[in-house]
C-alpha cells in the first residue's frame, strides 16, 4: 500500500490523502497563537460564566456557591418571562420580513442593469453603517411631533403614530429598523444562491409558456430553498441577540415593553451587578438560541421528507 502511494505521487496529490510531507500535525504551529486567543476570550469566558452561574455573585459582596438556585429563580421571574415573549415576537418578525423582502430584492439584483454594482453597494449600506448612529437618526424620525415618519403618514392620510413611544407599537417600530438594516444580508445570501442556479429549467419553462409567478414559485423558490434556510438561520441568531438598536432607541422601554432577554441580561449584570444571576441568564439565553436553531433544522428536515414523500 505504501509502495503504491510512493510510486504514484501524482495520484497521491490529487487524492484527499496527503503525502508524507503534508502530514497534518505539522501545521499545528500556525494554529497555536489563534488557539491561545480563542481559549482566552471565548472558551475561558464560557467556563467562567457557567461557574459564576452556580454562585451568588454580586459586585462588592463575597461569593457563595448556591448550586442551581440562580436557574431556579428564572421561571418565577416575571421580567424574564416577559422578556422571552418580547424576544420571540421580535425575532419572528425580524426573520420573516427581511426574508421576504430580501428574496424579492435578490430577484431584482439578479437581473442585469447599468450601475448594478454601485447600487448594490448603496443597498448594503444600512447593514454596514454604525448601528448606534443609525438608531439615533431613527429616534428622530420616530419623534411624534417633529418626526419625518408621521409627516410621511400624514401625506397619505394616516393619523400620527407614537411609534417607539407607545408600548403597543414599540416592537413593530423596532422591527421596522431591524428590517431596514438587515434585509440586505438576506439579499446577498439569496443572490449567491440565484447565481448558482442552472439555466436549463428556465429555458424549458419558457417553452412551456410559464408566467413569471409560476417560474418563481415552481423553479426559483425550490432551488434557492437551501440558501433561504441558511439566511433565515443567520438572521434568527442575529435577531435574538439584537442589542444596539433596541438599547439606543428605547433601552427596553417604554416601561419594559421592548425589553428582550439581551436587554434584561444587561440590566441584571451591569446595572444591578448581579453577576451570578446574569450568568445564569446568559447560559439559558445561549441554550434558547441553540434550541431555536434546532427547531429550524428540524422543520427543514420535515419539509424535505414531505417533499420526498409527495414525490416532488
Amino acid at each position: 500500500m505504501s509502495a503504491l502511494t510512493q510510486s504514484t505521487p501524482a495520484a497521491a496529490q490529487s487524492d484527499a490523502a496527503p503525502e508524507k510531507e503534508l502530514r497534518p500535525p505539522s501545521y499545528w504551529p500556525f494554529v497555536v497563537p489563534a488557539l491561545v486567543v480563542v481559549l482566552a476570550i471565548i472558551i475561558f469566558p464560557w467556563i467562567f460564566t457557567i461557574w459564576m452561574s452556580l454562585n451568588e455573585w454580586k459586585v462588592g459582596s463575597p461569593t457563595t456557591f448556591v448550586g442551581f438556585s440562580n436557574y431556579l429563580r428564572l421561571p418565577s421571574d416575571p421580567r424574564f418571562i416577559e422578556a422571552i415573549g418580547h424576544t420571540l415576537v421580535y425575532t419572528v418578525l425580524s426573520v420573516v420580513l427581511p426574508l421576504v423582502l430580501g428574496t424579492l430584492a435578490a430577484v431584482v439584483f439578479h437581473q442585469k442593469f447599468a450601475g448594478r454594482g454601485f447600487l448594490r453597494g448603496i443597498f448594503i449600506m444600512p447593514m454596514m453603517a454604525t448601528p448606534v448612529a443609525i438608531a439615533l437618526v431613527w429616534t428622530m424620525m420616530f419623534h411624534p411631533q417633529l418626526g419625518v415618519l408621521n409627516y410621511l403618514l400624514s401625506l397619505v392620510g394616516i393619523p400620527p403614530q407614537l411609534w417607539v413611544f407607545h408600548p403597543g407599537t414599540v416592537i413593530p417600530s423596532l422591527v421596522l429598523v431591524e428590517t431596514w438594516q438587515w434585509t440586505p444580508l438576506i439579499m446577498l445570501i439569496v443572490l449567491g444562491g440565484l447565481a448558482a442556479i442552472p439555466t436549463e429549467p428556465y429555458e424549458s419553462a419558457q417553452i412551456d409558456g410559464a408566467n413569471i409567478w409560476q417560474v418563481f414559485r415552481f423553479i426559483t423558490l425550490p432551488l434557492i430553498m437551501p440558501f433561504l434556510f441558511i439566511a433565515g438561520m443567520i438572521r434568527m441568531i442575529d435577531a435574538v441577540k439584537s442589542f444596539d438598536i433596541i438599547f439606543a432607541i428605547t433601552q427596553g422601554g417604554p416601561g419594559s415593553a421592548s425589553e428582550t432577554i439581551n436587554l434584561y441580561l444587561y440590566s441584571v449584570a451591569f446595572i444591578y451587578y448581579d453577576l451570578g444571576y446574569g450568568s445564569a441568564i446568559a447560559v439559558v439565553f445561549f441554550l434558547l438560541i441553540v434550541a431555536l436553531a434546532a427547531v429550524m433544522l428540524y422543520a427543514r428536515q420535515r419539509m424535505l421528507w414531505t417533499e420526498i414523500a409527495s414525490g416532488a
Partner: protein
Amino acid sequence: MTPRQIIGKIGLWLAVFVIVSPAILFFLWMASLSLKFEVDNAAYPPVFIPEHFAWKNYADVLGSNRFLTYFINSLVVTGSATALALMVGVPAGYGIARMAAHKSAIVILIARITPGLSYLIPLFLLFQWLGLLGTLIPQIIIHLVVTVPIVIWIMIGYFETTPLELEEAALIDGATRWQVFRHVALPIARPGIAVAFILAVIFSWNNFVFGIVLAGRETRTLPVAVYNMISFDQLSWGPLAAAALIVTFPVLLLTVLAQRQIVAGLTAGAVKGG
C-alpha cells in the same frame, strides 16, 4: 426592442428604485438633519433642503476637544484588534484549511451564536482584577471576540480555494513550512486578507455593547461617545446628526469603495460578532 421588452425594462428600473430608496432616503435625511439649524429641524412640515446650511454643526462636533480623544480611541481599539486578529487569524486559517480540520469551525460557530454580553460578564471581572479598567486594553482584547472569528472564518474559506501545487513545489525544493506560508501562500491570499481586514475593521468600528460596559470617560470609542451625547443634547438634533454621520462616514465610504470585497466576504457566510 419590442414593447414588451420596453415595459420589462421600465418595470425593472421601477423595482430597483423602490428597493434602493429606503437606504438612499434615510442617509439623505440623515445628511439633511445634520446640515440644518434648530429652527429648520423643529419645523413642521419638515424642511428637506434648508436655505442656509448649518456647517457649524460639523465644526462644533469636530472642534470639541473630546471628539479627538474619542476618535483616537476608536482608531487604537479597531486598529489594534484588527492587526492582532490578522496576525493570529491568517496563519490559523491557513493551518486549519491545510489540515482540513473542519471540526475546529465549531468553536467559531459557538462564538457566532454567543451573545456579546456573555463574554462581558467574566471578562469585566477579569479586567477589574487586573486593574486594567481605566485603559483601552480591555476594549482591544474584547474586540478580538469580534475580529478573530471573522478573520479565521474568511481565511479558512480563502485558503481552501488557493492551489496547492506551488506550495508543494516549494516544499520539495527544501523550503520550510513557514517559508512556504510566508513567500508562497501569503502573497496569493492577499485578496482574501483584504476582505477579512475590511470586515474586521467595520464590525469592530461599529461595536457598541463592549464600550458601554468597559469604557470610562476617557476611554470611550466613537459609538459610545455618540450614544452619550443623546442624554445631554436631547433637543439639538443638528449637532447630534452631524456626530452620527461623522462616526459612520468612514464605514459608509468603505462600503461603497470596497463593495465587491464586502459582498464576497458576507456571501461566504461571514460572521458578525457581538
